[in-house]
């Protein structure tokens, strides 16, 4: 098969079959969406830091949501709904999984491309309309969806329940269907590629932890996302065709008794979280893989406890299907079921602790090179432990009664899922950028970016635990309505200022990413002196990845500091 023929612009950059180009397309899409999601976060914090203060210049941008410059409550609800949706699905799933999964899997296992290149292209061009639909929903009558990223019916099921439950919610559901279709195609491709296309000598237990993570993520996506698709479809029927899957009799909204009967709102919660919890690990596992690969390279020593890391990934993947009920302890679900979910939930702490200690012991006896990539990977370790420990509070149902739906939860998941996921993605971009564009990112800008992000991240999200601990609910437009929450305003103001700093810090990254594509120093084939298989390709691999034969894999990807060798690393592909 000749992969190296000249291609037209359209087949090279737009409808490309090349996994690397598709990966890069996902990067561009995910970063665009992430930037929008970040702006939404800034607006949310603007309201919480300065409740109902007028900002006249914002009226020009949002004529209805910020009429006369003051944010309306319904606009606020749309903002956090779309912030969650965009960040969880279109940034934190697309960048590490669809982006890096497609880019890295063939390079790390010695394949010329993914198993199904056409499906891969189709998968990307299926998620693009999904993203466009989600963004367009801001501009329809009633505004974007406003039932939280969890879209609990009846709020999401009845059009008159909130302005965003009109056209905005319909578009949200349609957007999700596109997303699910794309993501399951991707998952199928991951699993088939990893099982079938490994180069000679690359046994499963010689795979880098990034690919192990993507393998398990592929399976999780395939098994969990269809539950969301089914739920979304049934919710559409309830909204448009008059069915009652999630809507019981006796609902009275806007002086009207709804005609539904017999549905169960809890059924939606079960379907949603059957996806929703594995989704958390779909975001987390690749970040864990990146962190392992990057720490090993820059610690100049093998990853500690490789075998237990692989088992931990599998254990987390399996358990992730058995814990969804911990989102529903006080939902009205049977209390006996709640108890079962406590046991499975806290069991996840065990493989998580294994990962954290293995990382710590990878650093012990290391010779750490501080690059932007390694700093972000070290950041993952810190954030992961902080966010993991607060999960023990929430996983214990008796304690969750007080903390459920408070800012304690918001703090928790912004560390463990969003934080570790985001830091892992940043580490990965700094690390693999040379292979993506054949150029180096600026280390100076990278370090500025790291330090602003690391410090501001803690400043934004750690105090949220105090707010939750003091009883501040999530998703409230103005906490000062409550007497017991009003004294917390200085904390909210502090978080808002830190959030602005965090946002500005990300501009260094975007600048670095786009400018270095043209102006970055040219990269060598293996600039970090890494032992991983992907570095056997030319500086900017073409379609087909290797000129000539694909090398064989002779060992695992973590052969650093081997005694008796001249160099401190022995690449996987060298005999």
């Amino acid at each position, binding site marked *: 098969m000749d992969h190296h023929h000249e291609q037209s612009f359209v087949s090279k950059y737009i409808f490309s079959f090349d996994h690397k180009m598709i990966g890069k397309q996902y990067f561009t899409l995910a970063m665009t969406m992430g930037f929008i999601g970040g702006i939404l976060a800034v607006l949310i914090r603007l309201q919480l830091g300065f409740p109902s203060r007028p900002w006249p210049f914002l009226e020009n941008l949002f004529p209805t949501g910020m009429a006369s410059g003051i944010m309306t409550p319904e606009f606020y609800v749309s903002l956090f709904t779309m912030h969650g949706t965009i960040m969880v699905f279109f940034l934190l799933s697309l960048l590490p999984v669809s982006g890096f999964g497609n880019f890295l899997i063939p390079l790390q296992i010695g394949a010329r491309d993914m198993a199904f290149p056409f499906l891969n292209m189709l998968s990307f061009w299926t998620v693009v309309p999904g993203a466009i639909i989600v963004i367009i929903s801001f501009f329809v009558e009633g505004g974007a969806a406003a039932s939280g990223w969890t879209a609990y019916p009846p709020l999401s099921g009845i059009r008159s329940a909130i302005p965003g439950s009109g056209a905005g919610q319909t578009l949200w559901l349609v957007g999700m269907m596109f997303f699910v279709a794309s993501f399951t195609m991707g998952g199928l491709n991951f699993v088939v590629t990893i099982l079938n296309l490994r180069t000679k000598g690359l046994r499963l237990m010689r795979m880098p932890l990034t690919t192990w993570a993507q393998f398990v993520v592929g399976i999780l996506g395939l098994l969990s996302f269809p539950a969301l698709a089914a739920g979304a479809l049934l919710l559409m029927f309830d909204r448009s065709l008059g069915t009652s899957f999630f809507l019981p009799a006796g609902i*009275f909204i806007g002086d009207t008794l709804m005609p539904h009967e017999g549905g169960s709102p809890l059924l939606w919660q079960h379907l949603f979280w059957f996806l929703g919890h594995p989704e958390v690990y779909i975001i987390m596992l690749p970040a864990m893989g990146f962190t392992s690969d990057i720490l090993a390279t820059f610690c100049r020593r093998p990853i500690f406890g*490789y075998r237990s890391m692989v088992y931990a990934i599998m254990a987390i993947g399996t358990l992730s299907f058995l814990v969804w009920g911990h989102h529903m302890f006080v939902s009205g679900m049977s209390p006996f079921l709640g108890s079962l979910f406590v046991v499975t939930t806290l069991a996840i702490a065990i493989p998580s602790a294994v990962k954290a200690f293995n990382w710590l012991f990878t*650093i012990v006896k290391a010779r*750490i090179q501080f690059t932007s990539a390694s700093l972000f990977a070290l950041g993952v370790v*810190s954030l992961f432990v902080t966010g993991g420990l607060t999960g023990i509070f929430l996983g214990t149902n008796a304690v969750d009664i007080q903390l459920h739906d408070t800012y304690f939860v918001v703090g928790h998941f912004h560390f463990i899922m969003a934080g570790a996921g985001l830091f892992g993605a940043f580490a990965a971009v700094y690390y693999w950028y040379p292979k993506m564009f054949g150029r180096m990112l600026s280390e100076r800008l990278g370090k500025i970016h790291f*330090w602003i992000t690391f410090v501001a991240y803690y400043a934004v999200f750690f105090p949220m635990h105090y707010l939750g601990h003091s*009883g501040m609910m999530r998703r409230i437009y103005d906490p000062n309505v409550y007497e017991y929450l009003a004294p917390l305003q200085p904390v909210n103001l502090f978080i808002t200022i830190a959030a602005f700093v965090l946002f500005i810090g990300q501009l260094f990254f975007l600048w670095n990413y786009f400018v270095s594509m043209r102006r970055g120093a040219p990269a060598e084939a293996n600039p970090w002196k890494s032992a991983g298989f992907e570095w056997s390709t030319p500086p900017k691999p073409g379609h087909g990845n290797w000129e000539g034969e694909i090398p064989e894999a002779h060992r695992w990807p973590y052969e650093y500091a081997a005694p008796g060798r001249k160099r401190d690393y022995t690449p996987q592909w060298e005999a």
Partner: protein
Amino acid sequence: MADEPKASRGNLQGIAMLVAIWAIVTLSVVFGLRHGLPELASDRGYLDTLYYVILGITGVAYIAFQIALGYVIWRYRGDRPGASSSHWHESHRLELTWTLGTAVILVPIVLTGLSQWNRVRAAAPDDAITVIAVGAQFQWDFQYPGADGEFGRFDPALYAIDNQIGLDESDAAATDDWVLTNQLVLPVGRPARILMRSKDVQHAFFLPNFRVKQDLVPGMTTEVWFTPTKTGSYEIACAELCGLGHYRMRAFLEVMDEADYANWLVENAPATE
């Protein structure tokens, strides 16, 4: 080594990581000590005890791990004199220790948590006062059963401006029922059982001072019971997103001593005919 990537130069990053992580730990603890759970006014203090036990365990783990992380980052920075890295990458003893160690710490947390959950979710005592809470966008209505101790039927077809809870007046049990809007009154020291239903979307009945939170689900009746232990006026919040007015779906719980409560009943409950 001569062929080191440029990026490894610079002592500063390792020290900066140590300082940053240790400072974050210190500040997070210092500021954390300034915040506490809202004042406790119910018999659910045992939940607070478990909360603080978990805070103690995770707090020690957090401080110890982050301090260790900061230290090893500094200690094993690549530019220290005579730096070299080790090929050592496995220790069954260590790996077994932290796997089993984590499990051993979790077992008492799970067991205590489950037993307290059972206590919270046990059936309400027979002497409990029962009130029905009806959640709607964006108000709370509390239905008292009146002298007969029985709640009248409701029918969604009867929801109206002057009948917020859709009470069916033709039901004999309904004649002495009465409703308070955004105000719940309970006597101190007696178990209170709150039955909950929603007229429209989901809400959550959250009493921050009583360690009580329970969702209201349309089509279902949910239930919670607790015993107020302090008199006073406390805020009731909605904790589940219920629409654009979610943030202002607020009510008050007045806890009175027995005598005041009896007087209040006489003064406020409509006389039965």
